[in-house]
């Protein structure tokens, strides 16, 4: 049985980001949406749902984490705390 695995992303309320909920097996996107609703939306005010074939999702590899993300780890000047303003200034 060569069903496709679909990753499911659920939007809990208007304005919220879609969040990964898990996966479903389904033959096509319509059945994937129906299964995803039955499995991941039994409760709560789910307003929207995405299903994406797992084979269409590209990801980084754990082994590459240090080199791939490192540039973001050591730049303190990207954070507000790096900067000095006179004490008592409002709006900072």
């Amino acid at each position, binding site marked *: 049985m060569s*069903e496709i695995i679909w990753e499911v992303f659920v939007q809990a309320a208007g304005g919220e980001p879609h969040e990964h909920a*898990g996966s479903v*097996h*389904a033959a096509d996107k319509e059945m994937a949406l129906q299964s995803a609703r039955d*499995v991941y939306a039994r409760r709560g005010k789910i307003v929207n749902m995405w299903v994406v074939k797992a*084979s269409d*999702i590209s*990801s980084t*590899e754990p082994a590459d984490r240090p080199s791939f993300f490192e540039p973001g780890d050591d730049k303190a000047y990207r954070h507000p705390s790096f900067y000095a303003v006179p004490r008592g200034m409002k709006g900072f």
Partner: protein
Amino acid sequence: MSTNLSAPANTLKNSADEPALLAQFEARIAAGETIEPRDWMPEKYRKQLTRMMGQHAHSEIVGMLPEANWLTRAPSLRRKMSLLAKIQDEAGHGLYIYCGAETLGTSREQMYDELLSGKAKYSHIFNYPTLSWADIGCVGWFVDGAAIVNQTTLAKSSYGPYARAMVRICKEENFHKKQGFEICSILANGTAEQKAMIQDAVNRWWWPSLMMFGPSDTDSPNSGELLKWGIKRKSNDELRQRFINLTVPQADAIGVTLPDPDLKLDAESGNWQFGPINWDEFKAVISGDGPCNRERLTAKQTAHAAGAWVRDAALAYAQKHAQ
């Protein structure tokens, strides 16, 4: 550098790297880090998790059967709706865990085949029959109650997909226990016949429920590794004690007697001491000789065979309409 999410994890490594990788892995566990599907992991970790998650998922699915037994005979529409919702939840819970388990590299098909062939185990508790409506109450109160104790601690499992499935399940499980307890409490305060019915159910479900936590860890061959690697966080005995401590006052509150004359509160520790568990019964039931083992397996095999045309039709339709 980038990989496809559904590609199998590269588990082939130079064997000379193993000790260093293992040390790194165990340091991550010790630091409370979460292991994700594409992280390096010892083969034994992968195997233990696959076995444990598989058994857990199978248990949810098989667990639907003893409750479905009373669906058409629920005493009222309200009770029928809530039992149906509970059974639907169990299906969903099984699916959450199967989806988490297949990230470890074993296909759904293989896992499910192992259930249907009898090769894979599932929680022994579901090999007991639901003989009366009161049993449905006991299943919710004791069996789901025990599951909650177990699953709450598993929500901190070191393996990300398992922990996340547990978090999701825990949010939904509380209604199961309350639904069951409500049934028990109403029967326990009902007619003489109802009181007798609930007491009989309690007498039959109490000890098997305690066995759900598994043998004492000294007798449990897998416990050591599971605890060392954070797959489980608490010992079988600790969890069993927690469940008993929670449940004794609940039984007291509704006036049912737990069938253990040795139950005694140890004031110093706050723990309820309890009598000896019949582990021979557990061994028999888990290895195929319980009241309903054959019935459960046959039901799943029949359902799988009967549903084949639906799966085939869906696939044929999808292939016909594929862009």
